[in-house]
């Protein structure tokens, strides 16, 4: 009977503790908004060396509904890169858009370290780090001076569409010289059941100094408009501590890489 009572007490205590501890993410199990369960860093397809910077990547999207209503979302990512090509991204769940309705304050940090050969997803609330095996860039390493814009293919073969590319010249954006390109994809009438042609316009401003696009505007009548811009840019070398897991974090490791490069990229 004594043993039985001990088990009953254990059951009651465990149930009480389980009910009182709020789940990670800062809200109750059935509150509004998403609850963060975990994260895992994926593959980096491109490592840029010799072009350190830090800045905020702000994305604003506006979706216009058929009745004229609008859905707007804004997300900000703090982006850091050092001379060795290590990157760190600090972001919130707000970037999940409609999926983060009513919440999204939870922060997530992704570190990609080609030098150490590992990637991490950090949970600053639970002080945990999820380590992934480094899969390496699939499309080679760019070093400073090799200002080659990544090749961007227009996919969707078989669709009756045309692609027009225009050079927009040079401009200074956020204090950085940039080259502009406008790509207009026209989907012919009837290609996807559309009565009239559909035009998807993407305007990209590419910085050779940072070797990345620093302003992208995209307009698609099917999904709305999206503007992504890099702001608050600093060219100083960031602290190496930013690319390391803090010692108080508990690290979990995945033995096998989750993400593999696509077959066509791996063959290059």
């Amino acid at each position, binding site marked *: 009977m004594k*043993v*039985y009572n001990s*088990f*009953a007490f*254990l*059951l009651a205590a*465990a*149930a009480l503790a*389980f009910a009182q501890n709020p789940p990670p993410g800062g809200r109750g*199990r*059935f509150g*509004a*908004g*998403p*609850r*963060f*369960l*975990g*994260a*895992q860093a*994926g*593959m980096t*397809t*491109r490592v840029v060396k010799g072009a350190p910077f830090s800045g905020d*990547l702000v*994305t604003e*999207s506006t*979706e216009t509904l058929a009745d004229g209503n609008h859905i707007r979302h804004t997300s900000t*990512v703090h*982006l850091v890169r050092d001379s060795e090509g290590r990157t760190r991204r600090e972001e*919130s*769940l707000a*970037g*999940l*858009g*409609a*999926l983060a*309705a*009513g919440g999204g304050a939870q922060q*997530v940090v992704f570190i990609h370290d080609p030098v150490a050969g590992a990637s991490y*997803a950090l949970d600053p609330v639970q002080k945990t780090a*999820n380590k992934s095996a480094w899969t390496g860039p699939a499309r080679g390493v760019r070093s400073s001076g090799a200002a080659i814009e*990544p090749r*961007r293919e227009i996919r969707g073969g078989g669709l009756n569409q045309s692609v027009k590319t225009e050079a927009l010249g040079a401009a200074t954006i956020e204090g950085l010289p940039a080259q502009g390109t406008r790509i207009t994809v026209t989907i012919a009438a009837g290609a996807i059941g559309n009565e009239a042609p559909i035009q998807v316009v*993407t305007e990209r401003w590419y910085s050779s100094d940072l070797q*990345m696009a620093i302003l*992208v*505007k*995209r307009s*698609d009548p*099917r999904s*709305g408009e*999206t503007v*992504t811009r890099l702001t608050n840019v600093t060219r100083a070398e960031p602290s190496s501590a930013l690319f390391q897991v803090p010692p108080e974090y508990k690290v*979990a490791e995945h033995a096998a890489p*989750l*993400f593999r*490069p*696509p077959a066509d*990229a791996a063959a290059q």
Partner: protein
Amino acid sequence: MAAGLCLLAAEMKNESAPPRLEAYLVRAYRERYPQRVQPAGEVRRWWAAAAAVLLVAGALWTGVRPPQPPLVAANSGIAAPANEDQDSAFIPLPNAAGSLQDDDVDLVRVELPRSAVTALGMPASDDSDAETVDAEVLVGPDGVARAVRFLN
């Protein structure tokens, strides 16, 4: 001699030991090898305790389980691990294109209120009483969700 024994066996075929002898042998065996017979109520209590332990362990494991690896990452140039089954594919989200580097994605796992499914314009299953749904979201380098996959 063998023939004589066979004849004796045939004559004693219908003979057997008296029931009293059998009872005596059984009693003597139990005295020599005592066997504890548990009362039925005690057995039930042990089973109940074991079930309680399993219940507590299961609840705790469910609450603190680490992130599980994604199964399939379609539409993003990402292949699933070879040893994983393909339960369901990721669903591309509106405004997912137009990023700075489309090929780089990370994964975030969240528990969403079921209303978030309908907010995306997707039909929520009516045959589930769950208020929440677990989802894996592929996030681009701009922090914007590219695709989502619902796990339950």
